[in-house]
Structure formats: C-alpha cells, structure tokens
C-alpha cells in the first residue's frame, strides 16, 4: 500500500509541475487558467489520494480524502469565477485566439461590405455592349443574369480577352464568352470567407447570391473602400 501511495504522489507532483509550466508559458489569462487549474487540481488530488492510500484508514487519511473532495468542488468554481471576472474586467484574449463567442461584437458579415448597386448584363446582349459597359463604369466584371435576376454566369475582362483569341468579338454575344462556373456566396457568410477566396483563388469579384438572385457584388476595391470607412 505504501508503494502504491508513493507512486500516486509522484504522479501527482508531475501533474502539478506540468500545470505550472502551462501557467508560465501560455499566452493569456484564459489559457493559463485552463492549463493550470485542471492539471494542478488533478495533481493535488492525486497527492491527497496517494497520502490517503499511504496512511490507510487513519484520521490523517480521512482528512486527506475530505480535503480532496473540497478541492474537487472549489477549484473549478474558483477558476470559472476568475475567468468571468477577468473577461468582465476587460482582459484581452491573446492575438492568436480564433474566436470569442462570449463577445457581444458580431462577426462581420458580407452584407456589411457588399455593393448593392450591381451592374448586370443579359446573356443575349452583344459582347460589344459588355465591353462598353465595363469601360464606361470602370469595372472589371459583370454578372450575367436573366430577366428574373437569376445568376447565369459572369463575364470579366479576362473572359473577353480569352474569347478574342479564338472568336470574333464584333458578332459574339455575352452568352458565348461568359464563364459559367461562378464562385458565389450568400450575404450572411462571414467576411473572412470572402477574403480567403480573394487571396487564395485569385478571383477579383464575387457575386453575392440569395435564393438564386444576385443581391450584390463584392470586388477587391469594395473591401478596400470598407477598410477606409471603418477607420473613420
């Protein structure tokens, strides 16, 4: 029994040590709290239990078990109160934190950024019209929609240039040159998703589609404009 008790105590001390290493090395209060509270509670409970096993059914052993019971109840409660108190006191999360579900701040949605005045074009318009529209409005791409507003495709500068290598721009219609594989997003999607599409897949604009209809468009320029306004 004595050997078993000592082994438990040794394991417990190592839990204590690793918990305090977490307390030392982790980046913010909440991480430190969760690392150290769990490990140290476990470690000290193991020490107490080891002592109870070591000393057998004696007054000291019973006291150790009672103390273990107290710590098991009080330590997580104290940790929870501390975390809540720190959060209310305005202690910041570490920069590496991924999400803050406790926060009142809403996640930025695409609908906050998107341009609602979408310039669209019908599939039966001529390619010449599309080119004129692109130049006139100073934009780089047009969503192609039918008369109901349902997205059919997109026509961009790139599509027109590629079409010019194998077709006649003068007689072609938008339908011939447009790109059917369009990356779209709903207005309720988080802005982060959009930004990753811009940076990873190389698109310059993403039509925002709700129930099949185009409700907006976000280009790289719209995000830059939004950043400028946000600063004010």
């Amino acid at each position, binding site marked *: 029994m004595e050997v078993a008790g000592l082994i438990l105590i040794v394991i417990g001390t190592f839990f204590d040590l690793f918990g*305090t290493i977490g307390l030392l090395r982790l980046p913010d*209060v909440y991480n430190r709290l969760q690392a150290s509270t769990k490990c140290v509670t476990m470690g000290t409970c193991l020490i*107490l239990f080891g002592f109870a096993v070591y000393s057998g059914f004696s007054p000291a052993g019973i006291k150790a078990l009672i103390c273990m019971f107290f710590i098991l109840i009080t330590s997580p409660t104290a940790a929870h109160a501390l975390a809540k*108190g720190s959060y209310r006191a305005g202690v910041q999360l570490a920069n590496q934190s991924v999400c803050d579900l406790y926060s009142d701040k809403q996640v930025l949605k695409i609908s906050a950024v998107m341009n609602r005045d979408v310039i669209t074009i019908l599939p039966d318009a001529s390619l010449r019209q599309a080119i004129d529209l692109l130049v006139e409005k100073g934009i780089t791409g047009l969503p192609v929609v039918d008369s109901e507003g349902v997205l059919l495709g997109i026509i961009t500068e790139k599509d027109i240039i590629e079409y010019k290598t194998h077709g006649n721009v003068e007689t072609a219609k938008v339908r011939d040159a447009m790109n059917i594989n369009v990356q779209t997003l709903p207005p309720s999607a988080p802005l982060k998703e959009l930004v990753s599409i811009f940076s990873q897949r190389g698109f310059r604009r993403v039509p925002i589609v709700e129930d099949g209809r185009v409700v907006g468009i976000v280009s790289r320029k719209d995000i830059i404009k939004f950043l400028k306004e946000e600063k004010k």
Partner: protein
Amino acid sequence: MIEFITGVLLLSIFLALYRIGMGPTPSDRAVAIDILGILVVGFCVIISLITGRDFYMNVAISWSLLAFIGTIAIAKYLEGKGFDE
C-alpha cells in the same frame, strides 16, 4: 524519493511565484495565487508525510477553503461588483 517529490513541488511553486511576480495583468496574478494555494495544499501533505504529524492535514483543509474564498473575492472584485450581487 521524498526529496525528489519535494524538489518537484518546490519547482512548481517557484514557477507559480514567477507568474505572480511578472503579471502582467492582475488576473494573471490572481490565477497564479489560486494555483499557489492548491500547490501549498499538496505541499502540506508532503510535509505531513515527512514529519509524520497529522497536524499539517488540518492546515491543508483550511488552506484549500481559504484559497477558494480568497479567489472568489478577487474574481468578484475584478468583475467590479459587490459581494451581495
């Protein structure tokens, strides 16, 4: 054996003391004090083991309860509320 256990526990206590000293926020210190309290309870057990006197177990029990009450008080203080809320 017992020297080794004492050494490891003392090392953990020094790590917690380092966090109490360095902060940087009051919450970090409060967390470290809470952890230090639990470590001290473990340490009382080890002292009881070394000296063979039960007396230190009483210290351990009261220390664990006092550490809890102290931490709750600090947490409430950080939250900026009175104790009766």
